[in-house]
């Protein structure tokens, strides 16, 4: 790293001590950091306990032994230990399909087919199909739960959102009004409210023959809820397509659906992909609200892990692990979104 050093030193010098005001800011910031960083370092490293059990841990320092002992619970919650390879495989499957979706090289029809298949596979894996005892969804939890709910809801909400966005831009007054009312109703309600509807109203509203468990009910309502948000993003993309495109398609004799499918939507989706990625990041963070209705997602599993009588009260360590997991995923995704935006803006010609 010595190659760039003269220039680096120059940049640093002007960046930190360029003017008198700049020097003052640097000193003030360093003072602030000197108040925060040393105690943090002492907590996380110097006073920390790395091995042992709860009795070895002190209240002054971090208890990383807790993390090694409870990491399995934070990641997989109450899933039966001997079958842990199943949720682990689910994580891998979802990671694979997400990676494939992230690379423009794979965009196309096979990917659209692969999504429902992957989700079905995850569902079967989690349920414990082909084992003697099926595993009910109240035993699922942790990271696979968070990722699964997120992927299912996002995948299911996107087609609904597409229809809603088309409906909102349609010339049919009744359909348009419905779409506007639906979208505004959903966007005006907090997600916690939607989850309460899933918890309290849905069991009463559905006929007895069709009783869904808590997770499925949450998935249904979250899907309907997110569809409104995705619809607004897609609508922005639809609005960006010049009317000439539609007119040209009509002149070629294409009907409404073929115009949308072959001309408008492919172009609109290209525009909205970065926006959708940003939405997806927000949604992943929002899945943590599942904790409010008692589903053991990643965050709730972490909280429960620190409520274990043997390891009582190591909330900071548990939350830190979860925060790092969320941060790695979301920070990576937001970097990816920025890269994609640039790529789509500059190239944009590949198919």
């Amino acid at each position, binding site marked *: 790293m010595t190659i760039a050093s003269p220039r680096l030193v120059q940049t640093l010098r002007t960046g930190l001590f360029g003017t008198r005001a700049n020097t003052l800011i*640097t000193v003030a910031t360093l003072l602030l950091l000197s108040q925060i960083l040393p105690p943090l370092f002492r907590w996380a490293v110097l006073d920390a306990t790395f091995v042992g059990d709860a009795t070895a841990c002190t209240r002054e320092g971090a208890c990383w032994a807790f993390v090694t002992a409870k990491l399995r619970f934070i990641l997989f919650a109450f899933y039966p230990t001997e079958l842990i390879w199943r949720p682990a495989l689910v994580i891998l499957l979802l990671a694979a399909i997400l990676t494939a979706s992230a690379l423009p090289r794979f965009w196309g029809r096979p990917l659209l087919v692969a999504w429902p298949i992957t989700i079905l596979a995850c569902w079967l894996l989690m349920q414990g199909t082909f084992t003697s005892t099926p595993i009910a969804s109240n035993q699922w939890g942790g990271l696979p739960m968070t990722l699964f709910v997120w992927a299912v809801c996002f995948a299911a909400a996107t087609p609904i959102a597409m229809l809603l966005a088309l409906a909102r831009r349609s010339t049919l007054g*009744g359909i348009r009004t419905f779409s506007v009312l639906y979208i505004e109703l959903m966007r*005006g309600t907090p997600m916690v409210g939607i989850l309460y509807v899933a918890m309290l109203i849905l069991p*009463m509203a559905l006929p007895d023959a069709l009783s869904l468990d808590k997770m499925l009910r949450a998935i249904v309502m979250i899907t309907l809820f997110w569809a409104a948000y995705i619809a607004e993003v897609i609508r922005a993309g639809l609005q960006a397509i010049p009317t000439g495109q539609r007119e040209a398609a009509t002149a070629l004799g294409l009907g409404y659906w073929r115009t949308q499918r072959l001309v408008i939507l492919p172009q609109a989706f290209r525009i909205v992909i970065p926006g959708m990625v940003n939405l997806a990041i927000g949604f992943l*963070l929002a899945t*943590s609200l599942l904790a409010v209705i008692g589903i053991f997602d990643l965050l709730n599993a972490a909280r429960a892990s620190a409520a274990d009588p043997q390891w009582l009260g190591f909330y900071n360590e548990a939350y830190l692990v979860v925060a790092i997991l969320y941060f790695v995923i979301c920070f990576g995704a*937001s970097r990816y979104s920025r890269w994609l935006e640039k790529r789509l803006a500059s190239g944009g010609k590949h198919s």
Partner: protein
Amino acid sequence: MSDRRVFRTAIVPGPPRPDTFGKIRAWWGGWPIGQLAFLAALAFLGWLFVSNVLGTMARVGILPGFGFLSSSANFEIGESAIAFRAGDTYLRAITAGLINTLKVSLLGCVLATILGVVIGVAGLSRNLLLSGLVRWFIEITRNTPLLLQLFFWMALAKALPAPRQAPALFDAIFLTNRGVFIPSLSLEGAPFGILAVFALAGALGGALLLALRLSGRLTRGTGIAAVVLPIAAILILLAFSGARPVAQVPALAGFNIRGGLNLSPEFAALLTGLVVKFSALIAEIVRAGIQSVGAGQWEAARALGLHDGQIIRLVVLPQALRVITPLTTSSYLDLTKDSSLAVAIGFPDLVSIINTTANTTGQSMEALIILIGAFLTINLALSALMNVYNNRVALRGSSR
């Protein structure tokens, strides 16, 4: 004069104006029967759900309707702006929750805006250390769930020292495990009417400013007069009424802290969480807004001989606000909605009281209708308010 005749002869009958029915039909558009069938199917589905709910309620023996609002609620509310005891009506409990939601949202919006602008401007600093620090702050707050942050702030609030050991900032602010104590300002010996006079004087001053602005007579002199006169009126009135403003500073007394304003740990954690999360979002918006004003604008303004303060006030801000305002509006809406996470850390906001109400009465449908209705109203009101402001910002840009 004679030219008019030429025009008169040129009049030809246009197409007939569509009557009301024609307008409705044009609005309804094509495929009329299909649309009706679709909407009817939806209505049928809705009716099916509602009748199922009513059926279930009848089976458990719960009377549907909003009559339960006037029956007495047998739970306590941790903190409330209006007096509430167990045994008061549900309506009063829900009102208390709504006020708590409004309080935390309003305070959150104001504080998040202030902090967000400061952080956003700091992020634009040429100082590498400061801008790097801001970058990391924003990335960390943006990429971790709000609920996680709330849990963290709640754990922190609980881990604060007891009042006796609590450190005091400037001898006036105490951070304790029983909440945060800050100095308060109140009117002692003031009859209730004084508050009304305050509101009246404020409204009068605002109306005066608005009238001056609309009539185009708003100058520095008249503006100052419109602000100073109501204040002077209030001061004179106060002097005669015998009421005086009292500043209370919290102080340690025995095992607890007395005086000042006490923010409960839940409220303090919720407010801190919302403010930190949304200040990061607003900082990003502010940064984007300021950067959207091209460097050429700065250079041109400098060439005209404006100094930095003037450039920001007259050139950069009016243009940046056009980008910032709509985005901030949606941040405010999100903040208000996210204040509902209070339920997870035990602050009695609207959602948590609605939840308790639904659980104790079984009237979950009615309770959730109230919840959704309240949030829709707040959202629509807030976005209407911000639209007015947005139109002003946008208009100013296009008219000059």
